[in-house]
């Protein structure tokens, strides 16, 4: 069987996505049709604008099928490994950022609620230092293909610098995740 070119595969994907948006997502998840009658007058409904967006994607998909291009890039296996790893690092680090503070407070603060401690030292920094530091450390170690003390110091130094930049000068600024816990 002949392999699909990248352009054709992308085009077919766009057409399927646009049709799904136009015939499933928009009708099921929007409160009004393309045009509605309100107080005797016709007005534009909430479906029209997303339908226009879906039309853009659909036309793009059809054009991709017919576009005369010699070659079109597609993500390789290496690309997928890289972005998959980065996504993993991101998810773990952001979860750490969000939950390390509340968990640490639950264990070490004698049952005091994290929400009440979120603007006090050291609690307000725990999530950001652990989550942010691990994000930087993991990314440097992955790109250099080895963990190093240098990467760790850079991560901790950078986190400290961001705290100095955002948290120390401004009373009304809260570092993640303290603004909405």
């Amino acid at each position, binding site marked *: 069987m002949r392999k699909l070119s990248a352009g054709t595969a992308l085009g077919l994907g766009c057409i399927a996505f646009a049709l799904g948006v136009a015939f499933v997502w928009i009708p099921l998840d929007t409160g009004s049709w393309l045009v509605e009658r309100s107080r005797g007058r016709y007005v534009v409904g909430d479906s029209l604008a997303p339908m226009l967006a879906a039309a853009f994607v659909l036309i793009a998909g059809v054009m991709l099928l017919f576009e005369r291009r010699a070659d079109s890039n597609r993500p390789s296996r290496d690309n997928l490994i890289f972005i998959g790893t980065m996504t993993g690092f991101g998810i773990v680090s*952001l979860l750490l950022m969000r939950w390390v503070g509340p968990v640490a407070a639950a264990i070490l603060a004698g049952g005091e609620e994290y929400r009440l401690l979120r603007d006090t030292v050291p609690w307000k920094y725990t999530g950001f230092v652990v989550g942010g530091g691990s994000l930087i450390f993991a990314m440097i170690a992955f790109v250099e293909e080895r963990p190093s003390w240098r990467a760790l110091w850079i991560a901790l130094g950078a986190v400290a610098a961001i705290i100095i930049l955002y948290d120390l000068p401004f009373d009304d600024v809260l570092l993640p995740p303290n603004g909405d816990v």
Partner: protein
Amino acid sequence: MTDLGVRDYILLGIQAVFAGPEAFSLLGLPISITVLMVTFGLILGIVVGATPGLGSVIGMAISLPILISVFGFNADALLPVLGFLIGVMKGSTVGGAVPAILFNTPGTPDAFMTTLDGYPMAQAGKARKALKISHFSSVSADTFSDIVLIVCAPFLAILVEAYLDLPEKTALLILSLSFIAAVVGGSAAKGLLSCGLGLLAVYIGTGEDFYPRLSMGTTALSDGIPITAAVIGILVIGAIFAELEELWHQSRRTGRIDVAKDVGDQRLHWSDIRQILPYISRSALIGTVIGALPGIGSTLAATIGYATGKRLHARRKAPGDPGFGEGAPEGIAATEAANSSVSGANLIPVLSLGIPGNTAAVFLILAADSIGGFNPGPAVFKFSTELNPELVIAFGLFTTMIIANTLNWTVGGALMRSLGVLVRIPKQHLLPVVLLLTLASLYVQETAMSAVWFGFGFGILGYFMKRFEISPLPFVIGFVLGGRLEATARQAFSATGGDPFFLLKSPIAAIFILGAVAVVYFSFRKPKAATP
């Protein structure tokens, strides 16, 4: 009240900049906060431009939440914040040439052509001279482009307000989106796809019904996607992933990541300036014309400026002089003048039509949106008898551009030449730090973890768009303009009594719509190669 004329507004704009809140006084002379912020912005712009892997977009993305925290949400914040962003924009166009010339590494994508002659000059021991040529060309072309902006934007805006009604404005937005989608990047289809995705994303969780559309019943989507998360995710985080991956591949191939080395210097003489002036003037004109069209960007301007300069040089050069690509100063002048003159002219569509033509303009809109009190677009240029504060801000903005240019002429060159050391910072260390800084700045601005998740998610989308060679710019501009397109279309539809053909009834609107179809059709027929 007496009538306020153009001259009054110009004076009020200048006054708003120089006589605004005072930061400190220098030899008894009060220095306003706006002037100080333009200076800081310019310095930051030169630094981020000179640092490979960074650029004006990252500089603006990180500084915007800090600026808003410092200045708050009031009318007094507008000029200092917008002035800072203008400074970053102008500084980065100058700074981008530093690593391109010294180390064959373009600091910004449009500085790529600068490497072709800049690096050979540096290797021949003329690095300092090459930097001076680049600085002179860049700043003179930028100044020319600003003059065109200051003269043209108000006239264009007045014409738009006088002749375009709601259906025409809707059609103009559709034409602009189609034009950007068709001309940016290597493929009209991919541009259209990028724009469609941007539009779809901005319509999530918005609308006029009680139920927030396309929110799938979730609270995260029901408030809509924060504009900063989408823009910064697609533009900044996506680019960081792509850049990090290059380093990862480099490390896997060679076991090490290359760091460039330093070389020589020389002076710039009046004879050199005379020699490069014809190239600067041609490229400045090319860059300004290209910059005035939304979405085309400085990379194409640099390419056309370089190609035009190359033809001129082939006719004029003396035997024995280096040709383009072999270390010709004229090559640097042609490229830098073209890409720098785009930056001023790029603000013509945003100030006169409210349509952002490039990423810097997107950030100006974001800042104006966040602070409030200034909506870039044709309505700004209403010379009414009642004081129009938005018009004062517009002329204040022009004043900040002139200040930024003056600073660029006077101290920018020396600062730029002292920054060669920045290229030694290993990118694999710098980029993850910038990523965390970007995520933190997103959180500071939105105060919601969902914004950080959205930013990260859009970063992944931005990465895939890069891998499929889809330009992210149409996405961003679709996202920024989507809300206005819908609002204008709703009003136009109601105003025409629910006429389904309202976009084709007036000749001007019909011409815009036909133009939109034509530009996509002709771009589709003629595939291009370069992706900015």
